[in-house]
Protein backbone atom coordinates (compact mmCIF):
# COMPACT_ATOMS: atom_id res chain seq x y z
CA UNK A 1 0.00 0.00 0.00
CA UNK A 2 1.21 3.46 -0.82
CA UNK A 3 0.24 6.91 0.40
CA UNK A 4 0.94 10.44 -0.73
CA UNK A 5 3.66 12.07 1.34
CA UNK A 6 1.97 14.27 3.91
CA UNK A 7 4.79 16.83 3.60
CA UNK A 8 3.94 17.28 -0.09
CA UNK A 9 0.22 16.90 -0.42
CA UNK A 10 -2.75 18.04 1.65
CA UNK A 11 -5.03 15.34 3.04
CA UNK A 12 -7.74 14.10 0.66
CA UNK A 13 -10.53 15.79 2.66
CA UNK A 14 -9.33 19.16 1.30
CA UNK A 15 -9.82 17.97 -2.27
CA UNK A 16 -12.49 19.50 -4.52
CA UNK A 17 -14.41 17.91 -7.39
CA UNK A 18 -13.13 16.43 -10.61
CA UNK A 19 -10.41 18.04 -12.67
CA UNK A 20 -7.23 19.63 -11.45
CA UNK A 21 -6.43 21.23 -8.14
CA UNK A 22 -3.31 23.02 -7.11
CA UNK A 23 -2.19 23.01 -3.51
CA UNK A 24 0.17 25.50 -1.95
CA UNK A 25 3.28 25.43 -4.16
CA UNK A 26 6.37 24.74 -2.12
CA UNK A 27 9.84 25.29 -3.52
CA UNK A 28 11.26 22.53 -1.32
CA UNK A 29 8.90 19.80 -2.35
CA UNK A 30 7.95 20.47 -5.96
CA UNK A 31 4.48 20.75 -7.45
CA UNK A 32 1.41 19.56 -5.60
CA UNK A 33 -1.18 19.51 -8.37
CA UNK A 34 -3.42 16.45 -8.40
CA UNK A 35 -5.89 14.95 -10.85
CA UNK A 36 -8.94 12.80 -10.11
CA UNK A 37 -9.19 9.36 -11.71
CA UNK A 38 -11.46 6.38 -11.06
CA UNK A 39 -9.99 3.08 -9.96
CA UNK A 40 -12.60 0.33 -10.21
CA UNK A 41 -15.20 3.12 -10.09
CA UNK A 42 -13.87 4.76 -6.94
CA UNK A 43 -12.52 8.32 -7.24
CA UNK A 44 -8.91 8.85 -6.18
CA UNK A 45 -6.69 11.93 -6.43
CA UNK A 46 -3.20 11.35 -7.76
CA UNK A 47 -0.36 13.75 -8.47
CA UNK A 48 -0.10 15.16 -11.96
CA UNK A 49 2.46 13.11 -13.88
CA UNK A 50 1.81 9.88 -11.98
CA UNK A 51 0.90 6.77 -13.95
CA UNK A 52 -2.34 4.82 -14.00
CA UNK A 53 -0.45 2.05 -12.17
CA UNK A 54 0.52 4.51 -9.43
CA UNK A 55 -3.16 5.45 -9.14
CA UNK A 56 -4.06 1.80 -8.51
CA UNK A 57 -1.41 1.57 -5.78
CA UNK A 58 -2.54 4.85 -4.20
CA UNK A 59 -6.16 3.68 -4.29
CA UNK A 60 -5.12 0.72 -2.14
CA UNK A 61 -6.57 -1.80 -4.59
CA UNK A 62 -5.78 -5.42 -3.74
CA UNK A 63 -4.90 -6.20 -7.38
CA UNK A 64 -4.47 -4.66 -10.82
CA UNK A 65 -4.93 -7.94 -12.67
CA UNK A 66 -5.54 -11.63 -12.21
CA UNK A 67 -3.18 -13.94 -14.04
CA UNK A 68 -4.71 -15.80 -16.98
CA UNK A 69 -3.20 -19.14 -15.89
CA UNK A 70 -4.17 -19.49 -12.19
CA UNK A 71 -6.15 -16.31 -11.50
CA UNK A 72 -3.58 -15.13 -8.94
CA UNK A 73 -3.80 -11.44 -7.99
CA UNK A 74 -0.99 -9.11 -9.05
CA UNK A 75 -0.01 -5.53 -8.45
CA UNK A 76 2.59 -3.59 -10.46
CA UNK A 77 6.10 -4.97 -9.88
CA UNK A 78 8.61 -2.84 -11.82
CA UNK A 79 6.72 0.35 -12.79
CA UNK A 80 9.14 0.84 -15.67
CA UNK A 81 7.55 -1.08 -18.51
CA UNK A 82 9.42 -4.37 -18.10
CA UNK A 83 7.30 -6.93 -16.22
CA UNK A 84 3.80 -6.38 -17.73
CA UNK A 85 2.26 -7.15 -14.34
CA UNK A 86 0.32 -3.87 -14.56
CA UNK A 87 -1.86 -4.85 -17.54
CA UNK A 88 -5.23 -3.23 -16.89
CA UNK A 89 -8.31 -1.94 -18.65
CA UNK A 90 -7.99 1.81 -19.11
CA UNK A 91 -10.90 3.83 -20.50
CA UNK A 92 -12.43 0.63 -21.82
CA UNK A 93 -9.31 -0.70 -23.56
CA UNK A 94 -7.88 -3.95 -22.17
CA UNK A 95 -4.22 -4.99 -21.89
CA UNK A 96 -2.77 -1.51 -21.38
CA UNK A 97 0.56 -1.29 -19.59
CA UNK A 98 -0.72 0.93 -16.79
CA UNK A 99 2.72 2.02 -15.59
CA UNK A 100 3.39 3.60 -19.00
CA UNK A 101 0.10 5.51 -19.15
CA UNK A 102 -0.03 8.90 -17.39
CA UNK A 103 -3.13 9.52 -15.28
CA UNK A 104 -5.35 12.23 -16.74
CA UNK A 105 -8.51 13.75 -15.21
CA UNK A 106 -11.49 11.42 -15.38
CA UNK A 107 -9.48 8.37 -16.47
CA UNK A 108 -11.18 5.05 -15.67
CA UNK A 109 -8.88 2.22 -14.61
CA UNK A 110 -10.29 -1.25 -14.05
CA UNK A 111 -8.39 -4.36 -13.03
CA UNK A 112 -8.15 -7.07 -15.63
CA UNK A 113 -9.74 -10.26 -14.33
CA UNK A 114 -10.04 -13.89 -15.23
CA UNK A 115 -9.19 -15.90 -18.28
CA UNK A 116 -6.67 -14.98 -20.92
CA UNK A 117 -7.69 -11.98 -22.99
CA UNK A 118 -6.20 -11.89 -26.47
CA UNK A 119 -4.34 -8.75 -27.44
CA UNK A 120 -7.19 -6.86 -29.01
CA UNK A 121 -9.02 -3.69 -28.13
Amino acid at each position, binding site marked *: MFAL*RPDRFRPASAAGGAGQRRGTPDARTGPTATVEVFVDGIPVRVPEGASAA*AAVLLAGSPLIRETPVTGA*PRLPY*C*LMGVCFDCLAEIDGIANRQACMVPAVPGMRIAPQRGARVAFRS
Partner: protein
Amino acid sequence: MSCDLAIIGAGPAGMAAAVEAVDLGLSVAVIDENPAPGGQIFRGLEGAAGDAALGADYAAGLPLLRAFRALRIGYRPATTLWHLEPEEGVLSLLAAGTTSELTAGRVLLATGAQERPVPIPGWTLPGVMTAGAAQILLKTAGAVPKGRTVLAGQGPLLWLLAAQLARAGAPPALILETRPKGRLAEALRAGGLLAGAPLLAKGLALLAKTRRIPRLRAVTGLHAEGTGHVRRVLWDGGATECDTLLLHEGVVPATHIPLALGLEHDWDEAQRCWRPRVDAYGASSHPRVAVAGDGAGIGGWQAAVAAGRLAALDAARRVGRLTEAGFARRAGPLLATRRAALALRPFLDALYAPPGWVLAPPEDATLVCRCEEVTAGQVRAAARLGATGPNQLKAYCRAGMGPCQGRMCGATVAALIAEARGTTPEAVGTLRPRAPYKPLTVAELARTG
Protein backbone atom coordinates in the same frame (compact mmCIF):
# COMPACT_ATOMS: atom_id res chain seq x y z
CA MET B 1 9.67 11.89 -41.98
CA SER B 2 13.40 11.34 -42.03
CA CYS B 3 16.40 12.43 -40.00
CA ASP B 4 20.15 11.91 -39.73
CA LEU B 5 20.02 10.38 -36.26
CA ALA B 6 17.12 8.72 -34.46
CA ILE B 7 17.75 8.28 -30.75
CA ILE B 8 15.67 5.76 -28.82
CA GLY B 9 15.42 6.78 -25.17
CA ALA B 10 15.62 10.18 -23.48
CA GLY B 11 17.71 9.22 -20.46
CA PRO B 12 21.21 10.57 -19.81
CA ALA B 13 22.79 8.91 -22.88
CA GLY B 14 19.94 9.83 -25.24
CA MET B 15 19.65 13.44 -24.06
CA ALA B 16 23.42 13.99 -24.21
CA ALA B 17 23.63 12.45 -27.68
CA ALA B 18 20.83 14.72 -28.91
CA VAL B 19 22.51 17.87 -27.53
CA GLU B 20 25.84 16.92 -29.11
CA ALA B 21 24.35 15.89 -32.47
CA VAL B 22 22.36 19.11 -32.83
CA ASP B 23 25.52 21.07 -32.03
CA LEU B 24 27.18 19.25 -34.92
CA GLY B 25 24.39 20.16 -37.32
CA LEU B 26 22.64 16.78 -37.55
CA SER B 27 18.88 16.52 -37.81
CA VAL B 28 17.73 14.55 -34.79
CA ALA B 29 14.61 12.72 -33.63
CA VAL B 30 14.27 11.40 -30.08
CA ILE B 31 11.74 8.66 -29.37
CA ASP B 32 10.95 7.97 -25.72
CA GLU B 33 8.35 5.77 -24.09
CA ASN B 34 8.04 8.01 -21.06
CA PRO B 35 5.94 11.17 -21.00
CA ALA B 36 8.91 13.37 -19.95
CA PRO B 37 12.68 13.22 -20.51
CA GLY B 38 15.14 11.97 -17.89
CA GLY B 39 15.14 8.19 -18.25
CA GLN B 40 14.86 6.23 -15.01
CA ILE B 41 17.60 8.01 -13.09
CA PHE B 42 16.23 11.51 -13.74
CA ARG B 43 12.64 10.43 -13.98
CA GLY B 44 10.16 13.13 -12.96
CA LEU B 45 13.06 15.55 -12.45
CA GLU B 46 11.29 18.59 -13.88
CA GLY B 47 8.56 18.23 -11.27
CA ALA B 48 10.59 17.02 -8.30
CA ALA B 49 14.05 18.61 -8.65
CA GLY B 50 13.45 20.68 -5.53
CA ASP B 51 12.46 17.69 -3.42
CA ALA B 52 15.05 17.50 -0.67
CA ALA B 53 14.17 13.85 0.00
CA LEU B 54 15.55 12.81 -3.38
CA GLY B 55 18.99 14.34 -2.78
CA ALA B 56 21.50 16.52 -4.63
CA ASP B 57 22.64 13.85 -7.10
CA TYR B 58 19.14 13.75 -8.55
CA ALA B 59 19.05 17.50 -9.11
CA ALA B 60 22.47 17.20 -10.82
CA GLY B 61 20.62 16.09 -13.95
CA LEU B 62 18.87 19.46 -14.40
CA PRO B 63 21.46 21.22 -16.64
CA LEU B 64 21.42 18.33 -19.13
CA LEU B 65 17.65 18.14 -19.02
CA ARG B 66 17.30 21.88 -19.67
CA ALA B 67 19.80 21.75 -22.54
CA PHE B 68 17.77 18.90 -24.03
CA ARG B 69 14.47 20.74 -23.63
CA ALA B 70 15.95 23.78 -25.39
CA LEU B 71 16.69 21.77 -28.56
CA ARG B 72 14.55 22.31 -31.63
CA ILE B 73 14.27 18.66 -32.62
CA GLY B 74 11.63 16.06 -33.25
CA TYR B 75 11.22 14.95 -29.63
CA ARG B 76 8.46 12.38 -29.33
CA PRO B 77 7.61 11.50 -25.74
CA ALA B 78 5.08 8.78 -24.85
CA THR B 79 6.07 6.99 -28.06
CA THR B 80 6.99 3.32 -28.39
CA LEU B 81 9.37 1.91 -30.97
CA TRP B 82 7.71 -1.40 -31.86
CA HIS B 83 9.75 -2.34 -34.91
CA LEU B 84 13.04 -1.30 -36.46
CA GLU B 85 14.10 -2.35 -39.94
CA PRO B 86 17.83 -1.66 -39.80
CA GLU B 87 18.71 -2.27 -43.47
CA GLU B 88 16.65 0.73 -44.60
CA GLY B 89 16.62 2.53 -41.25
CA VAL B 90 12.85 2.44 -40.93
CA LEU B 91 11.38 2.88 -37.44
CA SER B 92 7.78 1.89 -36.70
CA LEU B 93 6.33 3.93 -33.86
CA LEU B 94 3.20 3.90 -31.76
CA ALA B 95 1.85 6.99 -29.97
CA ALA B 96 -1.65 7.66 -28.65
CA GLY B 97 -3.03 4.59 -30.39
CA THR B 98 -1.68 5.57 -33.82
CA THR B 99 1.26 4.08 -35.70
CA SER B 100 3.69 6.02 -37.86
CA GLU B 101 7.04 5.56 -39.58
CA LEU B 102 10.30 7.43 -39.44
CA THR B 103 13.43 6.93 -41.54
CA ALA B 104 16.85 7.54 -40.04
CA GLY B 105 20.38 7.53 -41.42
CA ARG B 106 21.64 6.20 -38.13
CA VAL B 107 19.89 4.78 -35.07
CA LEU B 108 21.19 5.12 -31.53
CA LEU B 109 19.66 2.78 -28.96
CA ALA B 110 19.84 4.51 -25.57
CA THR B 111 17.28 2.31 -23.87
CA GLY B 112 19.09 1.97 -20.56
CA ALA B 113 18.82 -0.70 -17.93
CA GLN B 114 16.28 -2.79 -16.10
CA GLU B 115 16.44 -4.26 -12.63
CA ARG B 116 17.72 -7.81 -12.44
CA PRO B 117 14.92 -10.26 -11.64
CA VAL B 118 14.89 -11.50 -8.02
CA PRO B 119 12.90 -14.75 -8.32
CA ILE B 120 12.33 -15.78 -4.71
CA PRO B 121 9.32 -17.77 -3.50
CA GLY B 122 6.43 -15.32 -3.18
CA TRP B 123 7.89 -12.55 -5.37
CA THR B 124 4.68 -12.37 -7.39
CA LEU B 125 2.56 -11.51 -4.32
CA PRO B 126 0.96 -8.06 -4.36
CA GLY B 127 3.07 -5.84 -2.10
CA VAL B 128 6.37 -7.25 -3.40
CA MET B 129 7.99 -4.82 -5.82
CA THR B 130 11.38 -3.74 -7.02
CA ALA B 131 13.29 -0.99 -5.20
CA GLY B 132 13.28 0.90 -8.49
CA ALA B 133 9.48 0.82 -8.56
CA ALA B 134 9.30 2.42 -5.10
CA GLN B 135 11.77 5.06 -6.24
CA ILE B 136 9.65 5.83 -9.31
CA LEU B 137 6.63 6.34 -7.04
CA LEU B 138 8.67 8.70 -4.92
CA LYS B 139 9.87 10.69 -7.93
CA THR B 140 6.72 10.84 -10.04
CA ALA B 141 3.90 10.50 -7.53
CA GLY B 142 5.34 11.85 -4.28
CA ALA B 143 4.21 8.55 -2.77
CA VAL B 144 5.78 6.35 -0.09
CA PRO B 145 4.91 2.84 1.13
CA LYS B 146 2.43 2.74 3.99
CA GLY B 147 3.00 0.47 6.98
CA ARG B 148 6.04 -1.70 7.52
CA THR B 149 8.54 -1.79 4.65
CA VAL B 150 11.41 -4.24 4.29
CA LEU B 151 14.20 -3.75 1.74
CA ALA B 152 16.04 -6.88 0.61
CA GLY B 153 18.99 -7.30 -1.70
CA GLN B 154 22.08 -5.26 -2.39
CA GLY B 155 23.62 -2.57 -4.53
CA PRO B 156 23.90 1.23 -4.63
CA LEU B 157 20.23 1.76 -5.52
CA LEU B 158 19.10 -0.13 -2.40
CA TRP B 159 21.05 2.23 -0.13
CA LEU B 160 19.99 5.29 -2.08
CA LEU B 161 16.33 4.30 -1.80
CA ALA B 162 16.69 3.61 1.94
CA ALA B 163 18.10 7.13 2.45
CA GLN B 164 15.41 8.71 0.25
CA LEU B 165 12.56 6.90 2.03
CA ALA B 166 13.99 7.93 5.39
CA ARG B 167 14.18 11.57 4.31
CA ALA B 168 10.62 11.36 2.94
CA GLY B 169 9.42 10.31 6.38
CA ALA B 170 8.93 6.62 5.60
CA PRO B 171 12.14 4.82 6.64
CA PRO B 172 12.27 1.08 6.01
CA ALA B 173 11.81 -1.03 9.14
CA LEU B 174 14.59 -3.41 8.13
CA ILE B 175 17.21 -3.95 5.45
CA LEU B 176 18.07 -7.55 4.58
CA GLU B 177 21.43 -7.43 2.86
CA THR B 178 22.04 -10.42 0.58
CA ARG B 179 25.71 -9.71 -0.11
CA PRO B 180 27.54 -12.95 0.77
CA LYS B 181 30.43 -12.85 3.24
CA GLY B 182 33.86 -12.28 1.73
CA ARG B 183 32.75 -10.10 -1.16
CA LEU B 184 34.45 -7.01 0.25
CA ALA B 185 37.86 -8.68 0.13
CA GLU B 186 37.23 -9.74 -3.48
CA ALA B 187 36.10 -6.23 -4.36
CA LEU B 188 39.20 -4.68 -2.83
CA ARG B 189 41.31 -6.94 -5.01
CA ALA B 190 39.37 -5.71 -8.08
CA GLY B 191 40.92 -2.29 -7.46
CA GLY B 192 39.92 1.07 -8.89
CA LEU B 193 39.58 2.61 -5.45
CA LEU B 194 42.05 5.42 -6.03
CA ALA B 195 40.67 6.56 -9.37
CA GLY B 196 37.15 6.00 -8.10
CA ALA B 197 37.71 7.85 -4.82
CA PRO B 198 35.18 10.66 -5.44
CA LEU B 199 32.42 8.15 -6.24
CA LEU B 200 33.45 5.96 -3.34
CA ALA B 201 33.24 8.92 -0.96
CA LYS B 202 29.67 9.55 -2.10
CA GLY B 203 28.79 5.92 -1.56
CA LEU B 204 30.21 5.91 1.95
CA ALA B 205 28.32 9.11 2.80
CA LEU B 206 25.14 7.37 1.63
CA LEU B 207 25.83 4.35 3.84
CA ALA B 208 26.35 6.69 6.80
CA LYS B 209 22.91 8.25 6.20
CA THR B 210 21.21 4.87 6.50
CA ARG B 211 23.10 3.60 9.54
CA ARG B 212 20.13 4.02 11.89
CA ILE B 213 18.02 1.58 9.90
CA PRO B 214 18.21 -1.93 11.40
CA ARG B 215 19.90 -4.42 9.08
CA LEU B 216 20.92 -8.03 8.78
CA ARG B 217 23.93 -9.08 6.73
CA ALA B 218 24.64 -12.04 4.43
CA VAL B 219 20.98 -13.05 4.38
CA THR B 220 20.07 -16.25 2.45
CA GLY B 221 16.91 -18.28 1.78
CA LEU B 222 14.77 -15.18 1.26
CA HIS B 223 11.06 -15.68 0.68
CA ALA B 224 7.78 -13.79 0.87
CA GLU B 225 4.55 -15.13 2.35
CA GLY B 226 0.94 -14.03 2.52
CA THR B 227 -2.53 -14.72 1.18
CA GLY B 228 -3.47 -12.21 -1.49
CA HIS B 229 -0.80 -9.79 -0.25
CA VAL B 230 2.65 -10.08 1.30
CA ARG B 231 2.43 -10.34 5.11
CA ARG B 232 5.78 -11.81 6.11
CA VAL B 233 9.28 -12.03 4.77
CA LEU B 234 11.37 -15.02 5.87
CA TRP B 235 15.01 -15.92 5.59
CA ASP B 236 17.31 -18.64 6.93
CA GLY B 237 17.03 -18.19 10.70
CA GLY B 238 14.43 -15.45 10.88
CA ALA B 239 11.19 -13.81 9.79
CA THR B 240 9.37 -10.53 10.18
CA GLU B 241 6.00 -8.99 9.32
CA CYS B 242 5.82 -6.55 6.44
CA ASP B 243 3.30 -4.69 4.28
CA THR B 244 5.73 -3.97 1.46
CA LEU B 245 8.82 -5.91 0.40
CA LEU B 246 11.18 -4.14 -1.98
CA LEU B 247 13.73 -6.30 -3.82
CA HIS B 248 16.89 -5.22 -5.59
CA GLU B 249 19.93 -7.10 -6.96
CA GLY B 250 21.36 -4.46 -9.25
CA VAL B 251 20.56 -3.53 -12.82
CA VAL B 252 21.38 -5.11 -16.19
CA PRO B 253 21.29 -3.73 -19.75
CA ALA B 254 17.82 -3.78 -21.37
CA THR B 255 18.79 -5.99 -24.31
CA HIS B 256 15.32 -6.64 -25.70
CA ILE B 257 15.62 -4.49 -28.84
CA PRO B 258 19.35 -5.19 -29.51
CA LEU B 259 18.65 -8.93 -29.29
CA ALA B 260 15.58 -8.68 -31.53
CA LEU B 261 17.75 -6.86 -34.10
CA GLY B 262 20.20 -9.74 -33.98
CA LEU B 263 23.11 -7.54 -32.86
CA GLU B 264 26.19 -9.41 -31.64
CA HIS B 265 26.27 -9.68 -27.84
CA ASP B 266 28.97 -10.64 -25.34
CA TRP B 267 28.56 -12.27 -21.96
CA ASP B 268 29.80 -9.94 -19.23
CA GLU B 269 31.11 -12.24 -16.51
CA ALA B 270 31.69 -9.43 -14.00
CA GLN B 271 28.13 -8.12 -14.29
CA ARG B 272 26.58 -11.58 -14.98
CA CYS B 273 24.62 -10.35 -17.99
CA TRP B 274 24.68 -9.99 -21.78
CA ARG B 275 25.69 -6.74 -23.40
CA PRO B 276 25.60 -5.68 -27.06
CA ARG B 277 29.10 -5.68 -28.60
CA VAL B 278 30.06 -2.06 -29.29
CA ASP B 279 33.25 -0.15 -30.05
CA ALA B 280 34.50 2.86 -28.05
CA TYR B 281 31.93 5.08 -29.81
CA GLY B 282 28.94 2.80 -29.42
CA ALA B 283 28.95 1.33 -32.96
CA SER B 284 27.32 -2.12 -32.87
CA SER B 285 27.72 -5.10 -35.20
CA HIS B 286 25.13 -3.52 -37.52
CA PRO B 287 26.51 -0.64 -39.64
CA ARG B 288 23.48 1.60 -39.04
CA VAL B 289 22.94 0.96 -35.32
CA ALA B 290 24.77 2.23 -32.23
CA VAL B 291 24.13 1.54 -28.54
CA ALA B 292 25.11 3.95 -25.74
CA GLY B 293 24.62 4.23 -21.99
CA ASP B 294 23.64 1.51 -19.53
CA GLY B 295 22.05 -0.44 -22.40
CA ALA B 296 25.56 -1.24 -23.60
CA GLY B 297 26.83 -2.25 -20.13
CA ILE B 298 26.12 -0.82 -16.70
CA GLY B 299 28.26 2.24 -15.98
CA GLY B 300 25.99 4.82 -14.34
CA TRP B 301 24.68 8.12 -15.66
CA GLN B 302 27.97 10.02 -15.94
CA ALA B 303 29.50 7.33 -18.13
CA ALA B 304 26.23 7.25 -20.10
CA VAL B 305 26.41 11.00 -20.82
CA ALA B 306 29.94 10.62 -22.20
CA ALA B 307 28.93 7.56 -24.23
CA GLY B 308 25.92 9.37 -25.71
CA ARG B 309 28.08 12.28 -26.80
CA LEU B 310 30.70 9.94 -28.28
CA ALA B 311 28.01 8.15 -30.29
CA ALA B 312 26.80 11.51 -31.62
CA LEU B 313 30.35 12.41 -32.68
CA ASP B 314 30.62 9.11 -34.50
CA ALA B 315 27.29 9.72 -36.27
CA ALA B 316 28.51 13.16 -37.42
CA ARG B 317 31.83 11.76 -38.61
CA ARG B 318 30.10 9.09 -40.67
CA VAL B 319 28.10 11.67 -42.65
CA GLY B 320 31.06 14.02 -43.05
CA ARG B 321 29.90 16.64 -40.55
CA LEU B 322 33.09 16.16 -38.60
CA THR B 323 36.62 15.67 -39.90
CA GLU B 324 38.83 12.97 -38.39
CA ALA B 325 40.84 15.71 -36.67
CA GLY B 326 37.72 17.38 -35.31
CA PHE B 327 36.43 14.03 -34.16
CA ALA B 328 39.66 13.22 -32.31
CA ARG B 329 39.73 16.65 -30.66
CA ARG B 330 36.20 16.30 -29.30
CA ALA B 331 36.38 12.61 -28.47
CA GLY B 332 39.56 12.75 -26.38
CA PRO B 333 38.15 14.52 -23.31
CA LEU B 334 34.96 12.46 -23.45
CA LEU B 335 36.87 9.19 -23.43
CA ALA B 336 38.79 10.45 -20.37
CA THR B 337 35.56 11.48 -18.63
CA ARG B 338 34.06 8.07 -19.25
CA ARG B 339 37.17 6.30 -17.98
CA ALA B 340 36.98 8.30 -14.74
CA ALA B 341 33.26 7.58 -14.37
CA LEU B 342 33.89 3.84 -14.82
CA ALA B 343 36.89 3.65 -12.48
CA LEU B 344 34.92 2.27 -9.54
CA ARG B 345 32.98 -0.29 -11.63
CA PRO B 346 35.28 -3.32 -11.08
CA PHE B 347 35.01 -2.72 -7.32
CA LEU B 348 31.21 -2.34 -7.42
CA ASP B 349 30.72 -5.31 -9.75
CA ALA B 350 32.74 -7.57 -7.44
CA LEU B 351 31.17 -6.20 -4.26
CA TYR B 352 27.58 -6.58 -5.44
CA ALA B 353 27.84 -9.69 -7.62
CA PRO B 354 24.46 -11.42 -7.24
CA PRO B 355 24.50 -14.63 -5.20
CA GLY B 356 23.86 -17.90 -7.06
CA TRP B 357 20.40 -18.37 -5.48
CA VAL B 358 19.26 -15.11 -7.05
CA LEU B 359 20.48 -16.09 -10.53
CA ALA B 360 19.12 -19.65 -10.41
CA PRO B 361 16.44 -20.15 -7.72
CA PRO B 362 17.15 -23.44 -5.88
CA GLU B 363 13.54 -24.34 -4.95
CA ASP B 364 11.64 -26.04 -7.77
CA ALA B 365 8.32 -24.42 -6.80
CA THR B 366 9.58 -20.85 -7.32
CA LEU B 367 7.90 -19.06 -10.23
CA VAL B 368 10.46 -17.78 -12.70
CA CYS B 369 8.18 -16.65 -15.55
CA ARG B 370 5.74 -14.22 -13.95
CA CYS B 371 3.57 -13.93 -17.08
CA GLU B 372 2.93 -17.62 -17.76
CA GLU B 373 3.55 -18.86 -14.19
CA VAL B 374 6.27 -21.33 -15.08
CA THR B 375 8.33 -22.66 -12.17
CA ALA B 376 12.06 -23.26 -11.80
CA GLY B 377 11.28 -27.00 -11.56
CA GLN B 378 9.48 -26.99 -14.91
CA VAL B 379 12.42 -25.26 -16.57
CA ARG B 380 14.88 -27.72 -15.01
CA ALA B 381 12.79 -30.68 -16.14
CA ALA B 382 12.62 -29.35 -19.70
CA ALA B 383 16.38 -28.77 -19.70
CA ARG B 384 16.95 -32.38 -18.63
CA LEU B 385 14.55 -33.57 -21.36
CA GLY B 386 16.59 -31.77 -23.99
CA ALA B 387 15.88 -28.02 -24.05
CA THR B 388 19.33 -26.59 -24.75
CA GLY B 389 18.45 -22.90 -24.52
CA PRO B 390 15.66 -20.38 -23.83
CA ASN B 391 14.38 -20.58 -27.43
CA GLN B 392 14.26 -24.39 -27.49
CA LEU B 393 12.52 -24.29 -24.09
CA LYS B 394 9.43 -22.88 -25.80
CA ALA B 395 8.75 -26.35 -27.20
CA TYR B 396 8.32 -27.61 -23.59
CA CYS B 397 6.62 -24.77 -21.69
CA ARG B 398 5.46 -21.17 -22.11
CA ALA B 399 8.32 -19.44 -20.25
CA GLY B 400 9.18 -16.30 -22.21
CA MET B 401 6.02 -16.42 -24.31
CA GLY B 402 3.83 -14.08 -22.25
CA PRO B 403 3.36 -10.35 -22.73
CA CYS B 404 6.81 -9.39 -21.34
CA GLN B 405 8.38 -11.58 -24.05
CA GLY B 406 11.03 -12.85 -21.65
CA ARG B 407 12.29 -9.48 -20.43
CA MET B 408 11.78 -10.69 -16.85
CA CYS B 409 12.50 -14.42 -17.00
CA GLY B 410 15.07 -14.62 -19.82
CA ALA B 411 18.18 -14.45 -17.62
CA THR B 412 16.78 -16.79 -14.96
CA VAL B 413 15.67 -19.35 -17.52
CA ALA B 414 19.13 -19.36 -19.12
CA ALA B 415 20.83 -19.76 -15.72
CA LEU B 416 18.55 -22.69 -14.80
CA ILE B 417 19.18 -24.43 -18.12
CA ALA B 418 22.92 -23.92 -17.71
CA GLU B 419 22.80 -25.40 -14.20
CA ALA B 420 20.69 -28.41 -15.26
CA ARG B 421 22.91 -29.18 -18.25
CA GLY B 422 26.19 -28.54 -16.47
CA THR B 423 27.22 -25.66 -18.70
CA THR B 424 27.41 -21.85 -18.52
CA PRO B 425 24.80 -19.14 -19.24
CA GLU B 426 27.17 -17.94 -21.95
CA ALA B 427 26.98 -21.32 -23.73
CA VAL B 428 23.20 -21.49 -23.28
CA GLY B 429 22.65 -18.14 -25.03
CA THR B 430 19.77 -15.70 -25.01
CA LEU B 431 16.16 -15.53 -26.06
CA ARG B 432 15.71 -14.09 -29.53
CA PRO B 433 12.78 -11.68 -29.13
CA ARG B 434 10.73 -10.64 -32.15
CA ALA B 435 8.83 -7.55 -33.23
CA PRO B 436 6.51 -6.08 -32.18
CA TYR B 437 8.83 -5.22 -29.27
CA LYS B 438 5.71 -4.40 -27.27
CA PRO B 439 2.28 -5.90 -27.94
CA LEU B 440 0.03 -3.74 -30.09
CA THR B 441 -3.56 -4.17 -31.13
CA VAL B 442 -4.93 -4.79 -34.59
CA ALA B 443 -6.84 -1.51 -34.26
CA GLU B 444 -3.57 0.33 -33.58
CA LEU B 445 -1.93 -1.34 -36.55
CA ALA B 446 -4.81 -0.25 -38.77
CA ARG B 447 -4.64 3.38 -37.59
CA THR B 448 -1.73 5.03 -39.34
CA GLY B 449 -0.86 8.67 -38.79
